[in-house]
């Protein structure tokens, strides 16, 4: 186990370096003068020069990288020259909203995927299985923003059940808060549910072929007991890894969903910064998201190894 962890940590270091380096270089190596871009079209030469020295853009690249990384490690991602707020402060303010969105979406997705996945695997090739597979295939082909538009049309315009956009803080009004999260979370959850259903189904079909399942059947255990206790548990490992891998996709998804539904989360923060050409915020959020993404994947890898001994002993399931 220790060897395994050490190997993973050794792998983490270059990836972290690459990811932070890349986030940093975004503002520096790409063509176009960052100061000019940020100052906007109506800037005077003086304001550009002031921005440039304020952001230390006149210093050599490696110096700036080390300076930026050193501060970033200590939790200082810079201060937005636009709003004069600290980037980390903005992130801290908005992160809970994104996390709530993703959490609700995951719960919704799993609530749909687990029963359907189990039922599909139990009668593989049956009517339910075919219908579920077809539906999953179709749902996976719908771009997120299209899902959002259709859901707004159905639930907010046609049925008038929930607000189309807007956000109510959890502490102000918990019920209204959940209502405002319903459509955005459903948008994210639909795709998740489709992916998880497919995954759980194929994994459980394989598990149900195992000898110990036949053994359990021979002992006369009830079907639900076999499905839930014997088959679901090993199959949920794969689901767990995919949950981790999905974080990146989810963050991308959150970006769109938060923009469409006007939820003030991290994704919205990034899009707003992009519209405002606020490079300091863009850089900070990109670095934060990328590092979080890498760390979550790292955590999932470790958790996976803890749960499934085959992994840490090197006999990966290829």
């Amino acid at each position, binding site marked *: 186990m220790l060897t395994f962890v050490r190997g993973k940590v050794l792998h983490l270091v*270059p*990836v972290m370096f*690459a*990811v932070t380096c*890349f986030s940093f270089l*975004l*503002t520096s190596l*790409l*063509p*176009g003068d*960052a100061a000019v*871009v940020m100052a906007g079209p109506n800037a005077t030469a003086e304001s550009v020069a002031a921005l440039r020295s304020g952001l230390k853009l006149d210093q050599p690249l490696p110096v700036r990288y080390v300076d930026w990384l050193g501060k970033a490690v200590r939790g200082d991602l810079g201060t937005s020259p636009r709003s004069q707020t600290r980037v980390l402060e903005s992130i801290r303010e908005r992160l809970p909203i994104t996390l709530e969105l993703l959490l609700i*979406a995951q719960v919704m997705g799993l609530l749909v995927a687990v029963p359907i996945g189990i039922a599909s695997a139990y009668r593989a090739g049956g009517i339910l299985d075919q219908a579920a597979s077809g539906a999953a*295939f*179709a*749902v*996976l*082909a*719908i*771009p*997120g*923003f*299209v*899902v959002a*538009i*259709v859901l*707004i*049309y159905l639930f907010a*315009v046609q049925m008038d059940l929930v607000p*189309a956009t807007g956000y109510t803080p959890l502490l102000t009004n918990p019920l209204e808060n959940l209502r405002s999260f319903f459509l955005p979370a459903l*948008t*994210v959850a*639909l*795709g*998740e549910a*489709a992916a998880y259903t497919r995954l759980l189904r194929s994994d459980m079909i394989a598990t149900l072929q195992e000898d110990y399942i036949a053994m359990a059947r021979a002992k006369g255990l009830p079907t639900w007991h076999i499905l839930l206790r014997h088959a679901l548990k090993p199959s949920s490992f794969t689901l767990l890894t995919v949950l981790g*891998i999905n974080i*990146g*996709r*989810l*963050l*991308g*998804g959150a*970006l*769109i*969903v938060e*923009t*469409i539904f006007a939820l003030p989360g991290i994704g919205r923060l*990034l*899009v707003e910064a*992009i519209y405002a*050409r606020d*490079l300091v915020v*863009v850089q900070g959020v*990109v670095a934060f*998201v*990328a590092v979080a*993404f*890498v760390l979550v*994947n790292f955590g999932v890898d470790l958790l996976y190894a803890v749960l499934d001994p085959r992994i840490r002993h090197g006999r990966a399931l290829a």
Partner: protein
Amino acid sequence: MAAHSPDLTTEAIIVAPAAAGVDRPPRAWHRLGASFWLSVAWLALVTLVAVAAPALHLADPNLQDLTDRGGSASPQHLLGTDGLGRDMLSRLAWGARISLTVGCASTLLGMVVGTLLGMTAGYVRGRPEGVVVATMDALLAFPALVLILAVTTFIGHDISIIVGVIGFLGIPAFARVARANTLALAQREFVLAARAMGASELRIIGLEILPNIVAPVLTFGLLVVAVAMIAEGTLAFLGLSVPPPAASWGAMVAEGRGDLDIWPQVSLIPATVFFLTIFALNLAADRLRRVVEVRESRI
């Protein structure tokens, strides 16, 4: 989420080559099924309309007619008009040009570079392979949509830049598919035979390996076209793809979003076209992959 934010997860498609002599069974196309050919027909139609858009004598896609906003279908406007009175059919046709150009060009870029890298890594092995694999892993470790947004903010929203960024992000996925297939192929007898006959490494890669990984790479490519089109659509939806008034499917969906309560079709028609196209691409890729995989199991 449903929305596949452009994250190019690899589904490695490993295919062994058809053994010499045992050729494909007759009518391989028959086994692809009706759904495959329906998908191909839809894709062909979209491509044809996109290519022929200038010659179709459609209404000017950017001509506004504020007296006919959100109009329903009529002989002048077969699919009605959008919120600014512009012809929907014409905008869809011109939008298809952007969606398809980005989808195909960026896929081609990722495919060529990724396949070359993956094939070389899988064949040469050793240190170069380590470097390629590590670099690709690091690239995949970056949230793709965030990267696309960030890069286009800094460089610009020109179509060639969008193609470049999305294509660049496709490289790791193709490299993985190509490498996985090459690893399997490099062990096979015909490669050994070629080497025994004194073929150069370059010749082996070009004439023995490459022809055998073309099928799985192209099949995977269809999926990537869909992902790339979604990526462009998403950018366009956020208003960060090619600048307006240029029509783009994602932008059309976004433009109709404020009028969902009065003219839902303005958003829903492009949304449907977009969905059908992505669905057709996914379906075609899925069916093709099954046939390609059957070929493997027959050996």
